């Protein structure tokens, strides 16, 4: 009997595969389908995780452990820390069954062959069926099949970080849950990375496209901790109508076995990290993505230093932009408060 397919190339996937491979993988597939330049890579389905815990007996062990826990309502963080340690080590401590190992390894070596790089550097990213930003782990700059397999297990186990367990318990979902898919794209050897909004998330102005960018990997922009470059592009004419070059003292770069913050060399701190040509290209692609997805987008991209423009631009994520949520909610809840105060107590 043919074995069920549990690993897929991104280009085999689309939005409809959300429940099979998790949101991030399905998105990367959808982006590939739309013709966006996505780093090559593959996705490990949630079914594979299920097979892993079944074949290693981990599912039974976790169930037995949870049954012994009793009522968790109102538990302190130390309880969740303990649970997290136990559950994660149950997963991470298992040997990967050979058949699972082989099917992942087959895709990884094919990726190495396709890119022409031995032990090609990839990122190993969690992909839940629902978006839970910052809840699960992602590993950057992973090289070689052994490391990849190790990090896949760690991503699976990250469904049991203390914060994830506490979240589920407090929401009444139960301790066990959030089975994860895993996205494994080739690392972009990023000179600069950034995010692009096709609508102003604060003022809801949709006539402009906004870019934020920093040297190095995207994590140096997304975290919002450091001063970055900002650009405004007119959506209609694709002219650059605003620019702010930030004082970029830190950025995220590769280390030997991952990625970390590093100092930006002095002469590069006050220099725009992307060229006008790149800005216009990014804005143009974002504009057409917005059109084909039918709504404003919040997108992540990176520029590979080893490749020539425009082949150097890669798209890592796109999702519907959340607009003016902060401003709108505060006016609405203020009104709700006032009405409630008038008609009730408070």
């Amino acid at each position, binding site marked *: 009997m043919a074995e069920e397919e549990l690993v897929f190339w991104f280009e085999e996937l689309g939005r409809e595969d959300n429940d099979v491979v998790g949101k991030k993988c399905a998105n990367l597939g959808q982006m590939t389908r739309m013709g966006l330049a996505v780093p090559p890579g593959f996705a490990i389905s949630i079914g594979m995780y299920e097979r892993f815990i079944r074949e290693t007996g981990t599912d039974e062990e976790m169930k037995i452990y949870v049954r012994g826990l009793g009522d968790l309502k109102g538990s302190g963080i130390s309880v969740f820390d303990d649970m997290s340690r136990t559950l994660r080590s149950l997963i991470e401590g298992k040997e990967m069954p050979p058949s699972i190992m082989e099917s992942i390894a087959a895709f990884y070596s094919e990726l190495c062959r396709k890119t022409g790089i031995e032990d090609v550097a990839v990122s190993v990213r969690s992909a839940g069926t629902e978006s839970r930003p910052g809840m699960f782990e992602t590993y950057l700059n992973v090289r070689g099949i052994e490391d990849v397999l190790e990090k896949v297990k760690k991503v699976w186990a990250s469904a049991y970080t203390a914060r994830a367990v506490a979240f589920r318990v407090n929401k009444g979902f139960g301790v066990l849950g959030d089975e994860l898919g895993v996205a494994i794209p080739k690392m972009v050897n990023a000179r600069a990375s950034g995010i692009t909004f096709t609508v102003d998330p604060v003022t809801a102005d949709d006539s402009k496209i906004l870019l934020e960018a920093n040297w190095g990997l995207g994590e140096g922009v997304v975290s919002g901790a450091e001063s970055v470059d900002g650009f405004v592009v007119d959506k209609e004419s694709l002219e650059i109508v605003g620019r702010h070059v930030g004082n970029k003292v830190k950025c995220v770069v590769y280390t030997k076995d991952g990625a970390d913050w590093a100092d930006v060399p002095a002469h590069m701190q006050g220099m725009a990290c992307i060229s006008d040509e790149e800005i216009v290209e990014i804005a143009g692609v974002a504009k057409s993505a917005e059109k084909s997805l039918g709504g404003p987008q919040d997108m992540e991209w990176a520029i590979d230093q080893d490749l020539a423009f425009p082949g150097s631009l890669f798209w890592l994520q796109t999702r519907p932009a959340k607009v003016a949520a902060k401003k709108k909610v505060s006016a609405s809840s203020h*009104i709700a408060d006032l009405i409630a105060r008038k*008609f*009730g107590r408070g």
Partner: protein
Amino acid sequence: MGQDMMKLWDSIPGFDFNPEIDLPELNSWFFDGTHSVPLLTPMYAWHWIRHCGHGSQYSAEVLSMPRYKGFTFRDHEGATYIGMRIVRDEAEIAERTEKFKEALIPWIEDFDGIWAKNRQELLSMYDKLKAVDLDKASNIDLLHHLWDMISAHRRMWEIHFLGMNVSYAAFLLLEDLVKPYGLTSESPEFQNMFRGFDNYVFKVDKKLWELGKDAVSMGLEDIIMDNPVEKVIGKLEESNAGKEWLKKLHNFLDVDGWRMVRMMDFDEPYWLEDPSVVIPPIKAFVKKGGDYDLDGMTKKLAQGREKAIADLLAKVPKDEKPWFEALIMLGGKTGSYSEEHDLFCELHCHAVQRRGFLGIGRRLAAAGTIDKPDDIWFLNPDEVERVLGAPEFHKLQYIANRRRKRWEEIRFSQVPPVHTTRANIQEAVGMDLLPSADAIIIKIVVGELPRVRPELKADIYGVCGSPGEAEGPARVIMTYGELDQVQKGDILVCPGTNPAWTPVFGLVKAVVSDRGGTLSHTAIVGREYGLPTLVNTFTGTSTIKTGQRIKVNATEGTLYILDK
């Protein structure tokens, strides 16, 4: 046996007003003069007493209204009395307040979107009911239809109250917040902020006006103006031009004819059923003459609104502006929702039900169970259910005829404005009405009480629904059927109005109503037409006689009878 047995059926089991039980429970029961004048038929009262009360309770629960669990109705021979279920426990109020806040947010952010969805739900419910072929349906099919209509009516009231409670709550809050800027709900600067919204009611009026204009240009003016209303259509059918005009009328009614003449009862026809009922408003438009520039009028009012809002916002501290403006927008829904929901809720639903009940009435009359189809209004659904499976075995004349006789005797009689254990109506209002903070009851159904100012020596005091002064001959109109008596330049004196009455607002100089508050239909439409409007006079129709010259000063809340 006779008398005692019959008592069991009268007339809305479980909801008949019983002072011994009801007064100790809720202390005060307020007469709903806005909706139960003339007094209601038993069939309508059965639906209204249950489902309108249920709608209020449903909405209070879903929104978790802090001090209020909705009202409950009691019926006394077609007169509706309202009892307010006021939450008085402070801990419970605090708990409900928290949930209330959350429940409000979606409405604040997307009132129009939620209303559009609910409106769609209603329309698809009505479509299913209209699809039933009443004359081919079996008795059992009709019984199912009866139950389906009851469910639809109940759901209609649930939807009705959600939108009302939210928009009116915002309106009441605004009233408080504008006080520091020297405004009250009766001041023009305040009322101007809520005028000139796009409103389907006015679009229908515009179509009626166009029909009137067509009639004039097709040379049909004399036929329409000189014949009694019920003869007009017959006369029109005699000429080609008349036939052509009637075709236009029918095209209009196919779209907009699911609309009752009387909003809160089943006993008068809907437009599509009896096209002659739209003759009076068309006559009113022809009498008025001139243009009906709806777009121009709305635009002008909208400009006035923008200015009123800008003037107020200019005085509001800068950091308060964003939410203040959003609140004004939400409060503005009171006007448009208040008018528009009537079309999609009561007027349409009741038309669909009237159609269904007349179908059932025909079946019962054919079987000899009642004498004529419209005797059905003097039964209640329990009684209909008892016989409908095989009506030929049963007689209901002993109930229907007795009730019809009684209703015809008393339908215009005056009833006490309140039954209460409190010392007087002011105390009843203060203790058993205002603490509910239910804007609907306070502002529409019962209304604010007029302020009597002896130094002004007025004959009648009322509440300002729309500011201004006017002097002219009074025209006392009790029902829609009398509306074609209204002449240009009259001052309309009436118990209250509903959307079917709007065309005469273009004809008169001022409006005076017995009941209704600053958010009643009369006040809202009076503002849209810029007419001096005095509401909640209580005694307007009983004191003033048609033809007397009267002077209305709505701004100060007074009315003078000049030739007594």
